[in-house]
């Protein structure tokens, strides 16, 4: 996986070099922005792993998101917050093109993952979704055993050797902090697990294909505080190896788990900055009104 990560960085680095002067200007802007912040607030990364540029998404004639330009940085947690219907889930789902399943949708602008335009015609969707995993609001394990849930993705990728699958299942369950609870009964039905365990199983399933980006769409909204705490601890552990983008309605959760927060409203990106800045002293009145509950 480390090789995979360095490959990602090299690829993005090459692309950024090619972009020339514009990037230099952007880098300087980023540098001056980070200098103005407290050191504790900054988690500076060299380059982005997901990059949207003037990205718009339409459901038929209805706009989902409009002119989104933002970068998601590797090995960090980026939270997307905003009122219902603001387009945060639409944008999240656009990152692995799961919105394609909805008829009559179209996009404008570009959305790059690992330096590749994912809406280009040649994009292989299976590869994309292997690179960009997703965890949904409600735990949705397959009606299979714990082992088969995790092994499902790797088998699709062509891994059939038992010992290799065993290794992937163990590593994925350990990464999702579930191994200790289920290691003695991997053949048990995944549906027999508790809600919190099912959600961690879904995270383990997403990790089994070794993605570089993990999308989480309100992953704790159906869980109790204990299970929520475990998922948040897990996010903290995972961010050293994975890039996580999380949509949440729980602003305290966004404040707790993320390095950067994006505030969406009416399909537009209103503000995107380091999380401590957003929650202590946001730059836009709209953001402040939303996070302090004065919105509307």
């Amino acid at each position: 996986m480390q090789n995979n990560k360095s490959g990602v960085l090299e690829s993005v680095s090459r692309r950024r070099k090619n972009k020339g002067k514009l990037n230099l200007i952007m880098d300087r802007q980023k540098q001056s922005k980070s200098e103005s912040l407290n050191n504790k607030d900054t988690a500076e990364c060299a380059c982005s792993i997901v990059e949207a540029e003037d990205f718009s998404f339409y459901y038929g004639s209805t706009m989902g998101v409009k002119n989104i330009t933002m970068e998601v940085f590797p090995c960090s947690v980026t939270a997307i917050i905003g009122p219902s219907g603001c387009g945060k889930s639409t944008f999240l789902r656009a990152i692995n093109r799961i919105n394609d399943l909805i008829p009559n949708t179209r996009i404008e602008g570009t959305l790059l993952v690992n330096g590749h335009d994912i809406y280009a015609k040649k994009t292989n969707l299976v590869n994309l979704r292997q690179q960009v995993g997703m965890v949904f609001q409600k735990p949705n394990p397959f009606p299979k055993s714990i082992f088969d849930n995790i092994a499902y993705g790797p088998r699709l990728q062509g891994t059939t050797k038992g010992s290799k699958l065993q290794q992937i299942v163990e590593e994925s369950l350990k990464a999702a902090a579930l191994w200790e609870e289920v290691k003695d009964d991997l053949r048990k039905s995944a549906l027999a697990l508790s809600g919190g365990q099912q959600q961690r199983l879904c995270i383990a399933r997403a990790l089994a294909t070794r993605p570089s980006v993990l999308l989480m769409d309100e992953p704790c909204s159906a869980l109790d505080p204990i299970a929520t705490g475990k998922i948040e601890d897990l996010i903290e552990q995972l961010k050293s190896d994975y890039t996580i983008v999380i949509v949440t309605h729980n602003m305290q959760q966004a404040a707790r788990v993320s390095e950067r927060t994006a505030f969406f409203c009416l399909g537009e990106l209103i503000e995107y900055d380091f999380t401590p800045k957003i929650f202590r002293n946001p730059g836009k009145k709209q953001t402040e009104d939303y996070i302090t509950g004065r919105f509307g």
Partner: protein
Amino acid sequence: MPAHMQNEIEKLKKRILSLCATVETNLWAAVRSIAERDSNRAQEVIQNDSKIDNMEIDVEEDCLKILALHQPVAVDLRFIVAVLKINNDLERIGDLAVNIAERAAYLADKPPVNMSFDFVDMAEKVQTMLKNSLDALVNLDTDLAHAVCGADDTIDALNRRVYLEVEKATKKNFDQIPSLLHLLSVSRHLERIADHATNIAEDVIYMVDGRITRHKTESYK
């Protein structure tokens, strides 16, 4: 803002403003007790301090309650943090007013000292600083807060002048040395009150703009 948090913040605003008024009144009385050599008024100032101490505890408990129950963010968070710090400054100003009153009680029955310094003028300047810092808090007026920060230099200069005057006077009037030392203390207390007023003004700037201006004297100019 959710209604229950709004109510708590409104209640806190009333409490801190009430504390401001009490501290301002006590300082005024302490200064008058020096100027008018009134030991009765000085005793009232000393007794009133327990009221200020209790109010300080009430404000702090309200702040902690809001932090624990409502998890305020952004402007609300800055308001609570600023109030916690201003509360502390006001309580200290209350203590310094008591110190001044204690000097007044000592000086009341002593002969007036031979010193060419106008304490009332210095005290009025300090009171104006405190009043302006509290007005800046009430009206969220950062311009006024900046003016308060800038005025601190004047008080520091006056305090240095008092030191020199006292030094000069001690050489001429040996029998008045105890009284002169008490007056030097009064000057020192007034200078500390001006520092606390400056802190309050800096907290107002933080509350409104989200900028920390402490230790950056050039930004006042």
